């Protein structure tokens, strides 16, 4: 493991410049992300590592276009997310980004395939194309036999794989994962991360994952960005051999 200072990657996909995100809690101003700058290269697997309240999830939400920075700029493929209006941000989330959550967030009254189909409905993809892409996404996460099941009928690992299929179905260029193994046992969590890396290798996607489990980050990521009190305190580039 080699510790290096922040280095601009060769082909920058995401450029974070002096981003801060403030929250007001009564009279107190809380700075969840504090003047943070970071680059993510295309095809990279970046792990955001930090303890609870370090600002890693807030940063992920800002990168995923779910939230806006209080100051600073986030450029994705040259487009400043902070300057996008609400429909523009929605389009970014729909077309560029896939998102996986700790608690899976599958809609309970829909079957797995209907959940996976949801982003395609929002993107107004035609029905025959939708069916084809849903089948492909479920096949990729090896859940085709469970397509007609509701989330409550699936195990935690299956639900997260289903959520992964939903995140991939719109063929995004970046996948954001917020503690994807947080609600899973270690073996299942490892399976999910193996799947994530397999997908990254196959599709050449860029991945940004929030985790507080350093061993997992070291095993699967290309680089670790360490956060504390909303600041980037260290970046660790992992040699290719470190990836198991």
């Amino acid at each position, binding site marked *: 493991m080699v510790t290096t200072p922040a280095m601009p990657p060769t082909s920058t996909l995401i450029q974070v410049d002096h981003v801060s995100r403030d929250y007001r809690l009564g009279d107190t101003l809380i700075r969840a992300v504090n003047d943070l700058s970071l680059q993510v290269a295309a095809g990279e697997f970046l792990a955001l590592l930090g303890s609870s309240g370090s600002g890693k999830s807030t940063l992920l939400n800002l990168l995923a276009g779910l939230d806006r920075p209080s100051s600073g700029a986030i450029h994705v493929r040259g487009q400043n997310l902070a300057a996008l209006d609400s429909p523009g941000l929605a389009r970014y989330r729909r077309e560029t980004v896939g998102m996986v959550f700790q608690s899976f*967030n599958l809609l309970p009254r829909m079957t797995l395939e209907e959940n996976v189909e949801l982003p395609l409905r929002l993107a107004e993809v035609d029905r025959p194309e939708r069916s084809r892409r849903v089948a492909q996404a479920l096949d990729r996460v090896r859940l085709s036999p469970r397509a007609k099941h509701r989330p409550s009928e699936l195990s935690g690992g299956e639900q997260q794989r289903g959520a992964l299929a939903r995140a991939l179905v719109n063929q995004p260029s970046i996948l954001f994962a917020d503690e994807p193994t947080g609600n899973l046992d270690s073996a299942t969590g490892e399976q999910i991360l193996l799947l994530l890396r397999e997908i990254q290798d196959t599709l050449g996607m860029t991945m940004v994952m929030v985790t507080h489990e350093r061993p997992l980050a070291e095993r699967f990521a290309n680089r670790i960005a360490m956060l504390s009190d909303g600041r980037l305190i260290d970046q660790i580039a992992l040699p290719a051999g470190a990836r198991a």
Partner: protein
Amino acid sequence: MKPRDLADLAVRNLREAILRNSLTTLGVAVGVASLVAMLSLGVGLQALASQRLAKSGLFDAVFVTSRRDFRGPGDGPPRKNPAPHGNPKPLDEDARQQFAKLPNVVDVYPQIRFFTDIRYNGNSYSTNVLGVPESRTASAFEGLTGKYFSSPTADEAILQTEFAKELSPQTASLIGQELVLRYAQRRTASPDEISKEQDIDKQLDEMMSGGISIVSREKKLRIAGIVDSDPSAGIGGFGGGRVFLPLRIAEQLHAAQPNDVQDFVRGGGSGKPTYAALTVRVKSPKEVTQVEDAIKSQGFSTFSLLDASKSLRLIFTVFDLFLGLFGSLALTVASLGIINTLVMAILERRREIGVLKALGATDGDVRSLFFAEAGAMGFVGGILGVTLGWLIGQALTWGTTIYLRRQDLPGVKISYVPWWLALSAIAFAVAVSLIAGLYPAGRAAKLNPVEALRYE
């Protein structure tokens, strides 16, 4: 999102909280039902009144009298257009022909009503006879048992139910039976005719009467039918007839009319028969004013009920407005139910809204989804409400009919749901629901996705 997908998601969401959404929809349905029931009552009563009045033939008719200031006791206010000085024009056969030639006039006929004595089964009954013009069809009579006049010159009579009951309690058995009409015939006697008479007493009688004679006659008539009521009862101030004859038959009888004596006194017995009043039937109520003016210009007095019809419409419009307002009140309460349900749904589905937004749903998509749910509740509630309102109306009609039948009166349809009322009520329910959905939909759309996703 495409409309089909939006509708699909909305229906899914509505099905999810089926009990709550059904109750809310039922609230809308009850609101719409009260509105529809109220308005159907207004429309039904208006239709009933209009139908009755149309059947009475009052609104497409001009009543013509000679311009004579003959007024009974209890004069009332002074006339606006008093009779001109000099001799007024007589309302005779010539005048009748003239009116018939006017444009848009369908029929001109006299009011022939006279007192008579009916002989049936050896008994005698006093009553009034009314001549029914050819232009009036069977539909003008309500509750007709038996048949209408087989021809305008048939020696037939139709009896009013109450009178028929006097003749026989089993009124149906009267149909086809014969009765004898005894009446006073007016004869115009010329001086020559008088001198030819041999009976000196008779001559004296007739000389004393000054030129008209009244003789007792009889006419045999077959009872064709029995009718509940006389649709033109009371019009013209003579009271309703209890025995109806075809007008032509009634005219042929030359029965003595109440105005004969008046004519005689006024004209000194000119010998030409005149009418107490003529009814001029016009193609449609629109032409009434024009025909009325034309007749007035010929020197006759006229009267029509057009103004009364206008006031009636105004009264019903105000009545409908009030009924509508009361009905809308329930729908307003129902709209509060929609707001409540959707606000609750936002709280429950906060996380789902967050997921939708994270997956790329725009604020507009979320807003449309809530709108679609509100609209769907309004639409289904509207259809249910119209059905329920119609049923309430039917129940009211049913109840009223039972009550009327107990009073020996014919049943009436007091509630009526025309297609425009049904469609408007559904559209109104959807519109009210969408307005009720404005606030919840706006609130859902503005939800911050990060906060929504954090919601447990």
